[in-house]
């Protein structure tokens, strides 16, 4: 089958209003022949209704009535397309400050974050915000797509100036890997192909087109190989010859599990051996990060949802690894506040980390980021919606923590307001590095 070996890339797009994000996505889908005829017909009709001579590709991405009315993106839209080389999931996120939380939603699972800038305007405060969100979420690759190059006569010096400005931002934020590309979404320059109607307006640019970049970039996450298996559920049925073993259902968040290996169960610190790795498709000897499995153990232990299986310490020592998570009831974390109501240090929040939810209070707002200078400033006692800051949280019970920088899967959490049930914050955990 043609698609068997094709990998999937998840990327997000963000830009300030009118930077041309919708046009860009329309262009990517249109030029890669991923638009269906009925969609084309429907945006063709809408374009005519609005008095446009050409098809307005930006209409393709407006999902909600309110978005069409206001001509803006309010919430993330997910889109799917494929080329011969890869499958893509686009999280098309809103650029407006007010909807930052939706941008955070879409970017949290992206491997590449595309930030748009308008060549005639340069870097805006929104561009900095988008870069800051990508930095907070540790998105492996960030692309600055400098759009509307046609408006500046495809001038290389304009491109170089904006690129230099962005590189300063990237450095301030500690963004790992940044690529800057010139494009014109309206006409198609350097989006899918270098040329438009056989003219290469960006002949001075030696890099790839946006699509070539997306088709070839290695955006895999460098993640910890330590075993993290949070128990989601304990089976009602029992396994084994005498039906004496419970099954523990969960997803391997990182590392591998092997039959016969010793694991430690947290928080009880009890040890046991993996007896079976059960799946509906048959038992396995080994299972890897990302897989959803059912495990049985050679000992009967009191285990429930929220417990965490990790490599047993003895094996770590033998392998020269120290990969146990830190047990701590105080957490330092970078947080983007998402709630409509500001952070309240008097309130208790529910903190969801892996499969555990526990009560937590904010002990201190250590700092927050000034979006204009990207410097940390005094945090005061609160964070408002869409602000990014550093918090110290106190939890009702110890959590088993990894730094987000080491473990994308286990270094993050959300805060929930128990009164409204709203998700009010997204956090990435900071730990002092153990190895340096």
């Amino acid at each position, binding site marked *: *089958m*043609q*698609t*068997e*070996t*094709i*990998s*999937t890339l998840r990327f997000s797009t963000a830009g300030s209003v009118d930077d041309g994000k919708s046009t860009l996505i329309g262009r990517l889908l249109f030029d890669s022949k991923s638009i*269906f*005829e*009925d*969609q084309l017909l*429907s945006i063709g009709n809408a374009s005519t209704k609005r008095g446009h001579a050409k098809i307005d590709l930006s209409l393709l991405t*407006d*999902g*909600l*009535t*309110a978005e*069409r009315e206001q001509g803006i993106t*309010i*919430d*993330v*839209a*997910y*889109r*799917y397309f494929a080329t011969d080389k890869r*499958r893509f*999931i686009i999280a098309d996120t809103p650029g407006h400050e007010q909807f930052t*939380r*939706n941008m*955070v*939603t879409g970017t*949290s*699972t992206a491997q590449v974050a595309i930030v748009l800038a308008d060549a005639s305007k340069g870097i805006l405060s929104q561009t900095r915000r988008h870069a800051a969100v990508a930095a907070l979420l540790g998105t492996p690759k960030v692309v600055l797509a400098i759009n509307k190059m046609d408006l500046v006569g495809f001038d290389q010096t304009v491109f170089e100036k904006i690129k230099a400005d962005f590189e300063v931002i990237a450095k301030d934020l500690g963004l790992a890997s940044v690529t800057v590309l010139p494009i014109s979404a309206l006409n198609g320059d350097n989006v899918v192909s270098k040329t438009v109607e056989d003219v290469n307006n960006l002949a001075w640019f030696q890099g790839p087109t946006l699509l070539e970049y997306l088709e070839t970039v290695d955006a895999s996450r460098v993640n910890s190989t330590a075993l993290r298996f949070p128990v*989601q*559920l304990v*089976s*009602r*049925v029992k396994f084994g010859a005498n039906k004496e073993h419970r099954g523990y*259902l*969960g*997803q391997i968040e990182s590392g591998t599990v092997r039959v016969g290996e010793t694991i430690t169960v947290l928080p009880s610190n009890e040890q046991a051996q993996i007896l079976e790795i059960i799946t*509906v498709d048959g038992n396995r000897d080994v299972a890897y990060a*990302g*897989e*959803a499995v059912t495990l049985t153990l050679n000992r009967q232990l009191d285990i429930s*949802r929220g417990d965490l299986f990790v490599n047993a310490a003895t094996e770590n020592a033998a392998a020269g690894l120290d990969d146990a998570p830190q047990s701590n009831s105080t957490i330092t974390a970078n947080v983007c506040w*998402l709630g409509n109501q500001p952070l309240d240090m008097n309130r208790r929040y529910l903190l*969801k*980390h892996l499969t555990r939810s526990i009560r937590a209070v904010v002990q201190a707002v250590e700092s927050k980021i000034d979006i204009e200078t990207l410097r940390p400033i005094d945090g005061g006692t609160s964070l408002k919606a869409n602000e990014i800051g550093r918090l110290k949280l106190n939890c009702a019970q110890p959590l088993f923590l990894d730094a987000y920088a080491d473990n994308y*899967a286990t270094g*993050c*959490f*959300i805060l*929930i307001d*128990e009164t409204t*049930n*709203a*998700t009010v914050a*997204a956090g990435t955990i900071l730990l002092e590095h153990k190895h340096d």
Partner: protein
Amino acid sequence: MSTSAVLEKKPIEGVERVEGITTKPLKSPHLRALEAEAIHIMRETIAESRNPALLFSGGKDSIVMLRLAEKAFRPDSFPFPLLHIDTEHNFPEVITFRDFRAQQLGERLIVRSLEDSIAKGRIVLRTPDEVRNVHQTITLLDAIKEFEFDALFGGARRDEEKSRAKERIVSHRDSWGQWDPKNQRPELWNLYNLRVNPGEHVRVFPISNWTELDIWQYIDVEQIAVPKIYFAHDREVVIRKGALVPVSVLTPVRAGEQSVIKRVRFRTVGDVTCTAPVESDAATVQEIIEETMLARLTERGATRLDDQTSDAAMEQRKKEGYF
């Protein structure tokens, strides 16, 4: 009155075996990732909801959902019943399949029918044979209230339609069953917020990130049986406003129209009065996959007669509590 469907063992009409496959093709990394994501979502939902149910219509997406539920919970029985909101405007093959599959799995199937809502005066039809998709919402919300469900698994995919593309995997519904697209909960990483107040519920879409092609490739590798009408067959149709309309008791040939026999298959199966087949010779899953790769129309655009009315039709229905 409707009760849980009574199921008995008998040979099954309308159930197509997947043909033309002798060895199981290998599952691609892409499908394995989608499968694991769906299993994880289902298990989280079970852990964090009190009283969940899975919407099962007998259509291909919900059939795939059942396979994923097997992957998530077997050898245990499902920790939820199956729920079908029956318009009674069905393709008989699909209903036969629905009952067959529930029985085969040994799982409880609850059927709530629009006819009951009509009899109770909860739904008032303007004409007896009008499109019933819109009315399903009332019966659905009544069923949610009756059983006090607080989480409902649905087989909707984001690639289906514009407003679906906007929906979270865990999507909150207020006590009126309404969706507020402008005020959705942020949803980060794989940390889902399933909390609801009494009377509210969440809809959970484990196959949000699957495309029509993914569904067929999964049906292929998993060798899942689907109703016969998904495969090419000869059918009497009339051509109305460019769409093929199947001729049935509910959708008779109108005055001045000529019916023709066409080789067709269905890409979706729903209310008979608003589901159109497409012309096709694809008689096996493999041929459907090839056809899907080349398809020039979206699944809904090609087959749903009711969504064409306006860009916002689906969004409006979803806001009111539709699937």
